[in-house]
């Protein structure tokens, strides 16, 4: 089995979207689509599974909330209770309203930062990583659809040209 792929370049996101739909109807396998910006509805057209990042975000939020409860309880109640404005400092429950802003902030902090880091890890974006897009123009105004080569090369090329591709390139996938 060869790892040959064909890279079809498009210059319009609507054309790309129709091309993706047509390609999948013809039972060709799309490896990846490179776009300079998020194309609305592309994930559904490619048949990608729904993202699970929302679930991770919720879990991180719960962790952040729990951490904030522990931290505030330790700092303000257990370790060093301080008399601030005569507010009750001997029980967490009674001093809770004063803690709400911190509970909120740490929940958001954990959810946001850990979610972004998760997204980077999942997308394999980390320091010293080289760019994986096949053509630098896909960071500007062009779109590239990568299709697995199955069977006849000419036939596939003709088909992709029909869908509106402006440039085709056959390459070996590493």
């Amino acid at each position, binding site marked *: 089995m060869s790892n040959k792929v064909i890279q079809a370049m498009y210059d319009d996101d609507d054309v790309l979207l129709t091309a993706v739909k047509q390609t999948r109807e013809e039972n060709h396998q799309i490896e990846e689509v490179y776009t300079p910006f998020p194309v609305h509805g592309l994930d559904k057209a490619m048949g990608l599974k729904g993202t699970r990042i*929302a679930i991770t975000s*919720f879990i991180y939020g719960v962790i952040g909330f729990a951490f904030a409860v522990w931290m505030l309880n330790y700092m303000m109640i257990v370790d060093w209770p301080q008399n601030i*404005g*005569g*507010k009750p400092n001997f029980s967490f429950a009674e001093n809770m*309203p*004063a803690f*709400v802003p911190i509970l909120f902030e740490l929940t958001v902090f954990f959810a946001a930062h850990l979610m972004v880091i998760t997204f980077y890890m999942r997308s394999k974006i980390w320091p010293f990583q080289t760019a994986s897009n096949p053509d630098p123009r896909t960071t500007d105004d062009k779109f590239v659809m990568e299709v697995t080569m199955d069977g006849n090369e000419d036939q596939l090329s003709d088909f992709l040209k029909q869908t509106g591709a402006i440039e085709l390139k056959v390459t070996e996938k590493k």
Partner: protein
Amino acid sequence: MYTFSSKLKTFSLVLMILGALGMGYGFFTAPKTTNDVKEMIHHVDEAHEADTHEATAQISAEEEQSHLEHALHQAQNRPWTAFFVPAFFFLMIAVLVLVFYAIQWAAQAGWSIVLFRVMEGITAYILPGSILLFLFLLASGFHMNHMYAWMAEGTFNPESANYDAIIDGKSWWLNTSGWLIRGFIYLFVYNIFRWMLRKNSIALDENNDISIYKKNFNFAVIFIVIFAIFELFMSFDWLMTLDPHWYSQLYSFYVFSSMIVSGITVIAMVTIYLKHKGFLPFVNDSHIHDLAKYMFGFSIFWAYFFFDQFMLQWYANIPEETAYFMPRLLGSYQPIFIGMIVINFVFPFLILMDSDFKRTPWFVITAGMLILIGHYMDIFQLISPATVGNHWSFGIPEIASLAFFLGLFVFVVFTALTKAPLHAKGNPFMKESEIYHY
């Protein structure tokens, strides 16, 4: 065209009749003299603790008389409060739906056009609602009840025993005649704008004249600005002056957030009901999803305002400010006060968080019921502690008035929905709304 199902019509009429009977019962059984109250309090005392008798024995007869009079006024306020809470609640739902509708016009939003006739139908309640509320305002202004403590005789008279220097300092704004005139203006302006927006929206169906669209756009923009100012003073006039010594600058936004989330919830519920009955085939999942997002967002918005107002005063601990929170946080309203935070914030936050749940009608209905119950509790705890005081209960007068206004609301809204086609075909954004897809 929607036809008002006879089942729903009978249901709303039965609610109205039963509600009216219960309200009559509430007014009829309210104590008339201080002796009635004495008996009532005696009853309560016997049931609870006996040691209060020793305390009461020490105070003078005169003090006891004034105390009894106060208790009588509070007991007499109960049926009026029962009337005021749902009257205000349902009227503000209709008004805030009109605001939401105006925002859609002003923003030239594309997604919501299929819901326009539903929103217009709900705003039909503004007319009967404002008439009933204005009757209540008139009754208060003419001393038929003791809802507004600052209206009591002698409050502005330095010679009187009732004189209150703090309220007298506010008398340039806080006087009965000005208060009634302002109340009339607020309600009149809401009705005028509702009438104009609705008329043009129907006219747009008949002739696709873009100038009508532009006219409505202008009306909507003007209405939003006017409403923003009116809402500020309306909450001050009708609700905050129930506690005339207490003040909070956030109060109007707090009331606004509470009522707009209820309004959007009602839009979502009526839409789901009509879609379920097959009258809104052009409404899809994405429209419900968007409404549920608004419900979710505004629930958090409400919690934010609630907590802001509460925490600043709790933390500052100034007696004149915390007096407001005493009956609510620590007094007999505690179950309502704490309960509504859970119902209005925690439940919607968890139920409506997931994207798929927002597209599931019964989830939206469940969350919507909770939101409406929670915000009804909210309005109840805004009004009742100041008027009825600590000896409150949720009995026949309260349930009956809620039933009456709910019946009236359903009757008026669904009658209005039959008046025009549910498909606002003249709107230039209709196509965009029909194919709207998230």
